[in-house]
């Protein structure tokens, strides 16, 4: 028995959310007095791979052939399954990223494993059962799910477990398995990624704006504030419906659910569907000209004021803060 963690790369690099996943998987391995094996698929440098030892991986398997350069969930799931068999792993851990959501269910079926998607804390194994807390109802609540199968698959919500480093470099092992042609029917033709922007699902700080901003031409200051803070930008649903911002920025019950350390909401009323997607943020700041806006009821800090006056002042204040730091 062991724990296997899938380490997803983006353009050959690991993001912070992957160090969280490895740290989390290490803690599960420790709970079970067993080792942690990591598997990387695709092209990642050996330095980057060995570095995973710092976060707890005892060994890193590297599946890196030309055929595996781009992510195809069907093929990647087969490889992770083969790695689990070889290593005798019965708990598979991965990130609840967009790709992770395509992988976890396929691995779950292959292993006849219960799948806990979007876990927010370590499993509880004290009462002889295996339970995992996950988000439910688009962030309006949590569900404690019991996995009663021998094998288990757990995907971790970004920003919900701290990175723990301190270990040494991990040994690498090349992992080759025979692939099935039928696993590669989907062909990735193009990858379009804005590399200069912080991606919303794993951002630690999010600056979000709503209909109070009046029109798309006013997003310049929102972006400036976000850039200064190293934050991702987001918006409410009517804003993306109107085409002011892309759908990929829409947070809420029918959009992306985020759990950053800091969520700054500007000119957003705080409708229940919007709050659903952001309520697990650690700190919430609301800026709204209406003191009665429902968003203030769930905020930690607030400014009652006009966004067009407050945002430029915030930009100045952040600049000064950065200059003095």
């Amino acid at each position, binding site marked *: 028995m062991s724990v296997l963690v899938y380490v997803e790369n983006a353009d050959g690099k690991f*993001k912070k959310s992957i160090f969280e996943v490895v740290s989390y998987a290490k803690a599960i391995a420790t709970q079970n007095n067993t080792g942690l094996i990591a598997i990387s698929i695709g092209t990642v440098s050996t330095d980057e791979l060995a570095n995973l030892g710092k976060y707890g991986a005892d060994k890193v398997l590297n599946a890196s052939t030309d055929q595996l350069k781009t992510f195809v*969930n*069907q093929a990647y799931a087969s490889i992770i399954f083969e790695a689990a068999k070889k290593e005798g792993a019965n708990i598979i851990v991965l990130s609840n*990223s*967009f*790709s992770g*959501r*395509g992988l*976890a*269910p*396929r691995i*779950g*079926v292959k292993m*006849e494993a*219960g*799948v806990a*998607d979007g876990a927010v804390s370590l499993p509880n194994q004290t009462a002889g059962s295996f339970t995992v*807390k996950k988000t*439910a*109802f688009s962030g*309006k*609540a*949590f*569900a*404690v*799910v*019991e*996995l*009663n199968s021998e094998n288990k698959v757990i995907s971790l919500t970004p920003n919900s477990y701290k990175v723990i480093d301190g270990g040494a470099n991990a040994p690498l092992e090349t992992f080759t398995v025979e692939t099935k042609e039928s696993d590669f*029917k*989907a*062909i*990735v*033709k*193009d*990858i*379009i*990624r804005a*590399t200069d922007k912080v*991606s919303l699902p794993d951002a630690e700080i999010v600056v979000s704006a709503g209909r109070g901003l009046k029109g798309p031409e006013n997003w310049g200051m929102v972006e400036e504030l976000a850039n200064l*803070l190293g934050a991702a930008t987001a918006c409410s649903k009517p804003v993306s419906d109107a085409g002011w911002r892309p*759908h*990929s920025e829409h947070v809420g019950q*029918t959009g992306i659910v985020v759990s950053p350390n*800091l969520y700054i909401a500007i000119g957003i009323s705080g409708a229940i569907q919007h709050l*659903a997607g952001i*309520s697990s943020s*650690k*700190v919430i*700041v609301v800026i709204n000209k209406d003191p009665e806006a429902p968003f*203030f009821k*769930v905020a*930690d*800090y*607030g*400014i009652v004021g*006009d966004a067009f*006056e*407050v945002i430029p002042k*915030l930009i100045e204040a952040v600049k000064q803060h950065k200059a003095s730091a």
Partner: protein
Amino acid sequence: MKILVCISNVPDTTTKITFTDNNTQFNTAGVQFILNPYDEIALARAIELSEGGKGTVTVINIGEISTEPTIRKALAIGADDAVRVNAKPHDAYFVAFQLAQYVKENAFDLILTGRESIDYNGSKVAGMLGEFLDIPSISIIKKLDINGDIATVEREIEGGKEVITIPFPFVAGVAEGVAEWKIPNMRGIMSARTKPLKVIEAVAVKTLSEVISYETPAPRGQVKLVPADDAAKLIELLHSEAKVI
């Protein structure tokens, strides 16, 4: 082209979520159930793709009789026929297994699901169904076009998208962008009453996971207001008190 759209029945988005029986049961008292918004988008795209005699759209739900109004809504929007597998949807594995069983007996070219159900947000059914059928599954899709016997889809990735080509049959978990929501018209509502809705029994399968309790997020304390002309104060609080910047 035969298209299958998998639909789930979920609490309305305005629902205040509460629990009963010592936080072990979702409190359905007074809750209105709706067609999962993403499934509605999937259905809208399926109808667009089948229009003009190009195909048929079947909707399927794993649920008890209480889900029938939602199934009728899907028929009113424009599905040709419907199937209900008469069972409580225990978990995603159970649901995907029932769907796979149906697809094995009734071939489809394209199977659509929503990116996730807004109650349990598993994003699991599409992938599990693909694996049970040993065909490709792709989620989260924002664009779905068909040229002959190949589809081109756009999958969302962190900070961008991937363009993927894929032959039929496959399973796609769709999100906003794929189509606009369709509002049923009077004719649709009238004809929905007479469109076929077949009820079949479920096949026994293991339940691998089970929700044993729920928690609601911890309430936040009173909001700390900062004067509008003192933005520096807010930044100072976020730095030294909240320690987030």
